[in-house]
């Protein structure tokens, strides 16, 4: 396990250094939130040849619907833990190929389609501890823009400056490694032992 501190934009070379089990802290101005609807909109815009309000290349895309509020006319992130990433499995591979983000952050992991795209593009998926919204907000220092606000607070595209945002645990890398896939196998291997505890013989 190695600890990395990256500043955005992150290069393909940097992203390819990361392996499952490594820990990353991120700083910089290319940190964006995106859930189901923001992914969908970004892909539609690409198809229509339109440009989204931010450049996703080299960025960190965080699966999160934050709680934010305005203080003295300025938006602040109050609480922002990850949402369940597998919902974005529908869009993430295409999103990665088209926009070349380098770090996707969420919880629960993603599937084969995304894993293949991470390998192709040179990007990683990191897990941030679910529910730890107050802790995450500490690293999300400044809101620079609240784009696509018509989607509502959780689904909008928040444009953020991060400062030592983490610890982010690499759980899917660009070399085909996935802790989530490994966990599925580990749990499956235990099934007989688990069933035995409730009186079921396999």
């Amino acid at each position, binding site marked *: 396990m190695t600890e990395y501190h990256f500043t955005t934009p992150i290069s393909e070379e940097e992203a390819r250094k990361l392996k499952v089990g490594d820990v990353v802290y991120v700083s910089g101005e290319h940190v964006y939130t995106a859930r189901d609807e923001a992914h969908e909109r970004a892909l539609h815009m690409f198809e229509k040849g339109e440009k989204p309000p931010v450049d996703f290349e080299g960025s960190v895309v965080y699966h*999160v*619907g*934050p*709680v934010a*509020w305005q203080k003295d006319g300025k938006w602040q992130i*109050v*609480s*922002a*833990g990850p*949402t*369940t990433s*597998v919902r974005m499995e529908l869009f993430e591979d295409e999103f990665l190929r088209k926009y070349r983000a380098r770090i996707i952050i969420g*919880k*629960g*992991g993603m599937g084969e389609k995304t894993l293949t795209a991470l390998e192709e593009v040179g990007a990683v998926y990191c*897990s941030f*501890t*679910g*529910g*730890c*919204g*107050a*802790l*995450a*907000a*500490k690293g999300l220092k400044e809101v620079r823009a609240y784009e696509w606000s018509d989607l*509502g*607070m*959780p689904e909008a595209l928040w444009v953020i400056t991060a400062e030592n945002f983490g*610890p982010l*645990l690499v*759980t899917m890398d660009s070399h085909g490694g996935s*802790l*989530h896939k490994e*966990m*599925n196998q*580990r*749990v499956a291997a*235990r*099934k007989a*032992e*688990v*069933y035995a*505890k*409730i*009186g*079921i013989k396999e």
Partner: protein
Amino acid sequence: MKDPTQVIEDTAFRLLKMAVTRLPKDVEAALRAARDREDNETAKTQLSAIIQNMDIADAGVPMCQDTGIIVFYVKVGSKFPFTDDIKEALTKATRKATAEVPIRPNAVNPIVGGNSGDNTGVKIPWINWEVVSGDSLEIIVFPKGGGSENASIVGMLKPGVGLTGVKKLVVDNAMRYMGEACAPNIIGVGIGGGADISIKIAKQQLLRPLDDKHPEPEVAKMEQEIMKAINATDIGPMGLGGRTTVLAVKVDYAMRHPASLPVGVAVQCWAARHSKAVISKDLEVSYITHPLEGD
């Protein structure tokens, strides 16, 4: 004379604020104990983040950005004099908490789309009403996050599969959603009644103190068995491996139809947020899970 709507609203507002910023003592203690027990490094890291997060949230910040869909459990005494004021007060408190705690607007219209922006709307906040004898009002606020709610199921089993089939349903469900429900989880199981009744009972179990056990030994044994089985899966905190997959499993039941064996399985994330207060007929408020300082 105090304004009853205002007293109920102020109480519900404090309950909402306390629920989203501070876990009940038993849940906090269980999470700390779990961290000390884990020998898996990743699990320890996850639980340490959870504990660090609790400490930051204590200052009045929502511990999780998903402050849930707002659900109330209300027990109204048949002689409580201000029943007419309750619904309006709870709705107003929800709006106020959305703006002032703040909590995330989570009420979306499933038909025409759009977020109401204030956590209220058609049938929301949801209020579970129960009329009991007495002259006081008990309010529990239960903000329920979406990630763990998505892991909840109802199984309409064939009665022939028996209690082993019930346990299998709960264990298989845990092995299906893995870490998606922000483990360590609390699992509520409701058996019998009907599809709606079983899941209603299941969800109510999530409000039981973690260290209690069902008064009937057969049910208490089942709770232990399911808990041990799920904790043997190695799913662990956040599904990244470890021995703490569930903090507790709570089971209860109703009589069933001869042809049916409904089983509701309600899943709660580690942020098992709820807060309870009782308001007397004279509008005196006692906070139960989150007492006022100095009480």
